[in-house]
């Protein structure tokens, strides 16, 4: 069971209260009309799917009903940080290696 810190509720809550919503920080192409098929397909369907630190969106469905971001290890499932939408992560695989 994941124990997730909601940056809005400022409290750890059980996994059941949340819904995972996939990779975070995917920017919609600025000018969809001028976007190539490759770029549009990439935006819609292609994901990083890393083995290691993953920046992803979660939704606090049963709590504050806000989206926020989580940095989570996709092998150990350890949650490394949570942060609000609009903020940037402070942890990735490079920074984790450097910290070791």
């Amino acid at each position, binding site marked *: 069971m994941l124990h997730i810190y909601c940056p*809005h*509720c*400022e*409290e750890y*809550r*059980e996994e*059941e*209260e949340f819904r995972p919503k996939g990779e975070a920080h995917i920017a919609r192409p600025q000018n969809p009309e001028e976007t190539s098929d490759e770029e549009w397909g990439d935006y819609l369907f292609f994901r990083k799917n890393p083995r290691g630190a993953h920046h992803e969106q979660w939704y606090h*469905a*049963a*709590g*504050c*009903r*806000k989206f926020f971001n989580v940095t989570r290890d996709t092998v150990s499932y350890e949650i490394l940080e949570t942060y609000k939408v609009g903020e940037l992560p402070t942890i990735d695989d490079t920074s984790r290696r450097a910290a070791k």
Partner: protein
Amino acid sequence: MSEFATIDLVPTEPVKAESPLAMCRVDVITEPKAQSAGVVVREHAFLGHLVLRGNAGDAGFVNGVEQALGVPLPLKMGPLSVDEARGVSLQWISPDEWLIIVPGGEAFAAEQRLRETLGGHFAVMNVSGGQTVLELSGPAVPEMLMKCTPYDVHPNHFPVGKGVSTTFAKTTAIIRRLDEDRWALVIRRSFADYLYRWLLDASEEFGVHVAR
């Protein structure tokens, strides 16, 4: 005062109001007396429920709400603002959303006061028909709640005055701790029948009394 058409949802003609629990089938054996029950369930039907949305970073909004409702706007998840004597409570739901509960019949007046006081970007919506309140008392309430929700209801983690929105019996409910022995659930109309029967079923082993 914002430019907004408002309507009092309580009809002036006498019509029979019914709580969402009016049609509930109770199929557990209940205790005849509250004293002998581990859990006492009492519905507080027909209260006024309002959802307020606004910018917590706007001092005008924060002060305006307090001025209109007489209780401060809570800016964090956790403790409710309550005026017990007037039956008014104000709960943080989300960084930009609050639940106001006032005595039955007073929702429209509260909405109008908010509209008169507040300016700028905000929203207030009367949802009185959409939810109801169940008060739970008795020595077995915490133990019973542990069967229903993954949220930690231990007194150390759930002090008097706190309110949370969480998972409850596979759906959602707001859990509030009113005082040392009394708790309350704010539940949605569409789940009310299900949750009410779930609660009675979960409470049966402790002895459950339905107070009216």
